[in-house]
């Protein structure tokens, strides 16, 4: 590179491998990945991090981060991460899970990992559907929202109501840090990154279970352009899933980043 280094404002994080992601163009899974990579790098913890990949579109997350990774069965990432962390308490262990993975099939595992106060970090991608399998209804699908398995729109009478995971988990004593952020614009992306940083700081300091729920897009299954998908998040997802800090323990409030 001929450019002097101090001209550099932003470059691809080193915590990433060189592998391009398999995500659809404009899918904000990629943004969430990038933020995690930036945080690991900034905290200088890539060497001691072990990731746990989900089943969902992020199944190949392990190809993109330059850290050790294991691949969990659908929904079981928090249990697997518990196994890893309990025998290697000085490592940094995180799961990366979609809403089908975490809030549907894996609801038992996430609730109990949180209740036990497992010292893990969970990156939770709420895109209101099962992306990987072709856009079926997820527990987080909005009322009235059309998906391939709620083709006339989610009918809450027969298909139930969305689950607000952050609100729910924040009631648990073992949870140190639990917030919801969104990836729909630069300002919110910055806030999301700060939250991810705080979540990992929580773990590094042994302050309990930490989770960042990220409102994310699925342009392919929503049938929208990436740009319109961001608008959908802003106009429809955020009202249903209000952004905010659902639980930040006092000890974590003291953390200065």
């Amino acid at each position: 590179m001929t450019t002097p280094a101090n001209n550099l404002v932003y470059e691809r994080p080193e915590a990433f491998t060189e592998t391009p992601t398999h995500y659809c163009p404009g899918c904000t899974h990629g943004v969430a990945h990038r933020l995690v990579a930036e945080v690991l790098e900034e905290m200088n913890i890539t060497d001691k991090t072990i990731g746990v990949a989900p089943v969902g579109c992020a199944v190949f997350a392990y190809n993109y981060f330059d850290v050790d990774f294991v691949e969990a069965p659908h929904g079981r990432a928090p249990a697997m991460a518990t196994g890893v962390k309990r025998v290697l308490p000085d490592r940094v262990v995180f799961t990366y899970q979609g809403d089908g993975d975490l809030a549907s099939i894996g609801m038992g595992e996430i609730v109990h990992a949180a209740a036990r106060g497992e010292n893990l970090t969970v990156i939770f991608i709420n895109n209101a559907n099962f992306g990987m399998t072709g856009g079926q209804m997820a527990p987080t699908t909005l009322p009235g929202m059309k998906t391939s398995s709620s083709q006339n729109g989610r009918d809450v009478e027969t298909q139930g109501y969305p689950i607000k995971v952050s609100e729910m988990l924040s009631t648990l004593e073992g949870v140190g840090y639990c917030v919801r952020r969104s990836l729909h614009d630069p300002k919110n992306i910055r806030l999301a990154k700060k939250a991810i940083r705080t979540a990992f700081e929580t773990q590094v300091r042994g302050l309990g279970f930490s989770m960042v729920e990220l409102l994310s897009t699925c342009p392919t299954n929503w049938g929208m352009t990436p740009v319109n998908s961001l608008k959908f998040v802003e106009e429809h997802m955020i009202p249903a899933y209000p952004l905010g800090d659902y639980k930040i323990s006092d000890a974590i409030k003291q953390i200065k980043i």
Partner: protein
Amino acid sequence: MPKELWKGNEAIAEAAVRAGLEAYFGYPITPQTEVLEYLSRRMPELGRAFVQAESELGAVNMVYGAACTGVRVMSSSSSPGVSLMMEGLSYIAGTEVPAVLVNVMRGGPGLGNIAPAQSDYNQAVHGGGHGDYPRIVLAPASVQEAIDLTVLSFDLAEKYRMITMLILDGAIGQMMEPAEMPEMKPVHRQDFDWATNATMGKRERRLLTSIYLNPLDEEQTNLRLLNRWKEVQANEVRYKEYFIDDAEIVIVGFGTAGRVALSAVRTAREQGIKVGLLRPITVSPFPTERLSQLTGQARAFLVTEMNMGQMLDDVQLTVRGRVPVEFYGRPGGVVPFPDEILNEIKRINSAPTAGHTDARDAWLTRMTAQV
């Protein structure tokens, strides 16, 4: 070490601790719960990991996670709980990481009961989780053997990067017997070249997964597992023989059914009947070669099990009609008395064996007539 009185389940727990168990994850279920209870006290005392999981699903996936880091890890459960663990077992098999699982079997299907049974032989040996994978299955018949096989199971799991299951029934799990514990082994973390324990800046990153999207890669994985299984078959078959040298009738039975059969064999011998017992200790790999040899000597086989005839199929596959095979089973959580098996021995000894009737059908007819 001197012999002490040990309860089967607690003996397994302590033996695992002494073999260097670093993490245990489980969920209560009778008749296995003492393993969990014992370790809930013992593991924290030693600064090792213990978690009572939210379910067997949780437990097996915690085992999976810990196994990926290369430590000695196990879980234990009983039949319905093991069913829930099948997902995890398949993933563990597909990822080729070592793990130990103890199944203290009970009567089934469904909720069944909590009485001793061998109803999960097929699940352990042939079936269970999805996909094509072998696994090692050990079947102790006494508290001492449960201890020894627990220790062995960790070595085998690590050597072959394979699930090793111990299947026993509630009788062995609950019984008190004098037994000798091995010495306490210090925890020794092996430096496996596959373990995902974080790079610590010293090596390339590692990945453990069971996903092989390209069928050709999956096929290679299947073949790799099979080749490893061939090694297991060649090196790890274990069984015990009793009164076999001149035996004309050979009983084949594992675990408690084998043990009860041994009492019957002793009595029959006192009465001059030339009967012996082959007790498989590894029900997987099955002692096929030895059994095949015995077809040249025995004029009849009698398979005894505490189920409807699951190992029976494996015996028949090996014997391949060369010698008549008979069956006596007590399913549902019923433990046979030695007298019942003695009667079978006498029946086979006096009657020229029917030979061509299906062993299970014939047994069913006799059972139905009895009830």
